[in-house]
């Protein structure tokens, strides 16, 4: 079976125009590509990366891969350390906001001259006049997933979420779960309350705002006042609760759609995160996608092999395969117009949230915001700090952080 898949992919490559504009012919000599990715095994996305790497090796036996999975933050830390030590991998497949620290640290190279970026949707890895990554998928955005056996339709707004949630939270079951440890899950609600983490200039933190206070208070109330969500839930906990039917709704990203489609089948419903009743605004999750980034140290035949592999990975056939296998929205313009992508209910649901999202900033300053928000979000949810105090502390920490990176 694996062999046939490889043969099919090989033929697909030839038919799909591997050497399209911007492409580079694969080198003839032996090249081993060390590829680091934060694509996880539990969602099946790491296996997808491995499958395409194996398929490429089947096509070009002289090019082999050593694919390594690292958790998102570990990848950022390890890649910086490895680059400093002169032992960086040859290719990185990660989220767009890593482009900020990596480009500032001068450890990746721009891809403008290596690829025809017009073939792809607008890049979320563009900083200033340069583009630092080749998009693999669009989205990487949070959305509301629900179990149709437990709740027929998704609540339209937060008032409905709370009223429905109170009836659903009973007998050890919860109405909704989300990852309470990461500020990535806070950002959509901040948008819904009319806030943003940056001022218009895109680099000045605006964390101590009424919108942030309202957001933090709302999240705290969901847990304590309305008690429709667990007192503690990390990623693994929310994932397990939803899969076990102990939570009717879940807020999670497009990377998990393939996994939940398998687990719940037709029972899986997808909808935008409910509108904030107080502001009549839709929550705005960050949108970005997964990107290939090429370390600065990669040159010569390895660079040629890396570029050729990226072209292969993001060709039309493999983009459609990704949409079917992982339920992710493609980044190649041609693939976004495909009938499957337009008509598949899961992808349609994902798109309905995507259009309400906001591009995730890739600037280095975003790093300060993430690091500033995380402990304060935890403090509010633990009940050890008020929303107002936490918002002020966030802002102070972000501003102090900016000074340390000057």
């Amino acid at each position: 079976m694996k062999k046939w898949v490889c043969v099919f992919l090989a033929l697909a490559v030839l038919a799909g125009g591997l050497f399209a504009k911007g492409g580079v012919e694969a080198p003839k000599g032996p090249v081993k590509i060390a590829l680091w990715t934060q694509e996880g095994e539990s969602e099946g996305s790491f296996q997808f990366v491995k499958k395409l790497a194996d398929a490429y090796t089947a096509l070009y036996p002289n090019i082999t891969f050593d694919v390594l999975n690292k958790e998102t933050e570990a990848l950022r830390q390890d890649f910086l350390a490895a680059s400093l030590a002169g032992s960086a991998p040859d290719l990185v497949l990660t989220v767009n906001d890593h482009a900020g620290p990596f480009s500032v640290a001068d450890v990746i190279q721009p891809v403008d001259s290596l690829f025809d970026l017009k073939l792809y949707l607008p890049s979320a890895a563009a900083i200033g006049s340069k583009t630092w990554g080749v998009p693999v998928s669009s989205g990487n955005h949070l959305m509301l997933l629900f179990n149709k056996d437990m709740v027929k339709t998704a609540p339209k707004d937060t008032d409905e979420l709370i009223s429905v949630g109170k009836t659903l939270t009973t007998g050890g079951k919860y109405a909704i779960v989300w990852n309470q440890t990461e500020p990535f899950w806070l950002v959509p609600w901040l948008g819904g309350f009319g806030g943003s983490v940056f001022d218009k200039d895109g680099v000045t933190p605006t964390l101590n705002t009424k919108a942030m206070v309202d957001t933090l208070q709302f999240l705290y109330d969901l847990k304590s006042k309305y008690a429709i969500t667990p007192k503690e839930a990390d990623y693994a906990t929310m994932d397990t609760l939803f899969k076990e039917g102990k939570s009717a709704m879940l807020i999670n990203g497009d990377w998990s759609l393939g996994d939940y489609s398998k687990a719940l089948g037709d029972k899986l419903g997808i909808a935008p995160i409910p509108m904030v009743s107080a502001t009549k605004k839709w929550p705005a999750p960050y949108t970005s996608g997964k990107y290939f980034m090429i370390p600065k140290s990669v040159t010569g035949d390895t660079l040629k092999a890396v570029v050729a592999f990226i072209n292969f990975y993001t060709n039309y056939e493999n983009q459609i395969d990704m949409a079917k296998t992982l339920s992710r929205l493609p980044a190649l313009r041609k693939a976004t117009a495909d009938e499957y992508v337009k008509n598949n209910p899961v992808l349609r649901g994902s798109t309905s949230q995507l259009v309400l999202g906001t591009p995730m900033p890739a600037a280095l300053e975003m790093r300060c915001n993430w690091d500033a928000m995380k402990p304060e979000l935890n403090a509010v949810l633990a009940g050890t700090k008020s929303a107002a105090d936490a918002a002020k502390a966030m802002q102070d920490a972000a501003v102090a952080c900016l000074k340390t990176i000057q």
Partner: protein
Amino acid sequence: MKSLTPDVMVTSLGQVGGILAVIVVAVVVLELILYFLLKKILHYRYALPFMLIAPGLVGLILLNVYPIAYELYIAFSNMNLLRFRNPSHSLAIGWENLKSVFTAPVLKQQYFFPVFLRTMLWTGIQVFFHVSLGLFLAILLNRPMKLRGLYRTLLVVPWALPQVVASLAWRGEFNFEYGFLNVMLTRIGLQAIQWKSNPFWNFTAMNITNIWLGVPFMAVILLGGLQSLSKSYYEAAEMDGARPWKQFSSITLPLIKPIMTPAIVLGVIWTFNNFNVPFFINENNLETSDILVTALFRAAFDFNRYGFSAMFAMVIFLILFGITIVYMKAVSFSPSALAGSKARETLTVGEEK
């Protein structure tokens, strides 16, 4: 996950084998150079000892001396993400880094001294429980009983487990929904505890985990010490009418002090520098659970303050160095005390040295 097929094993061994081959070749070349230089040319009397210690010495320089020297070099730099490749180095920058350690937050909110005090508290709690519970278990296991060998084997199981694995397993047990502890608490009608988000309970969780991990080491060391004590001391004490507590305080404790002191010194250093337990148990990155070494890690690798972090590391090293010296002075410990204790062990009541 890929299964462990012969192909995978061969590939893995090939990767390790390559590194081993390089090390073997390097050692051979080093030994040949030393042989010709010291033995053949200089006819040096101690050529063989030098040749024997040379590979270890080179390893020590590469793995210990060079990283510490490089750390010191970075400590006097302004290295951060913006100056990742080409940082500036100067005494003034080093001084600024040093000042920042004590005057600016080392994390996002927490300053040095609260983190330092928490580290001292953490170390104090741990060493207290390790020594007291370890000694208690050692005394229990030092008495004749059935299945004593089995109990001793079971005792070292937590110690034998890799610390990271044990920490992650314990982290699972602190899960609010599925953790063993909360399941037990709710079964007996108590409220589940927010082990990961509540600062007090998270710190407690760290301590529970590390007590579980650390007691076996101390128990095994102290058991070894207790077994080496001559029974004649206790027989004589009993004849003089000494009660058990008196025997413990006047015989057991003084005689195992030479064993206990280095174990406590090691315990203080290891606990003070324990990274795995505070880091992995503190899943929510609560700053209120960070100790100095985890704060250092976050400053360096989460917040990318490399120059600052290198100086921070130097400060931690000096603190630990100072604590060790003070403690060793306080208990009048010197390495020769161990040798002395061994000599004393051979004596029995009534004998003279």
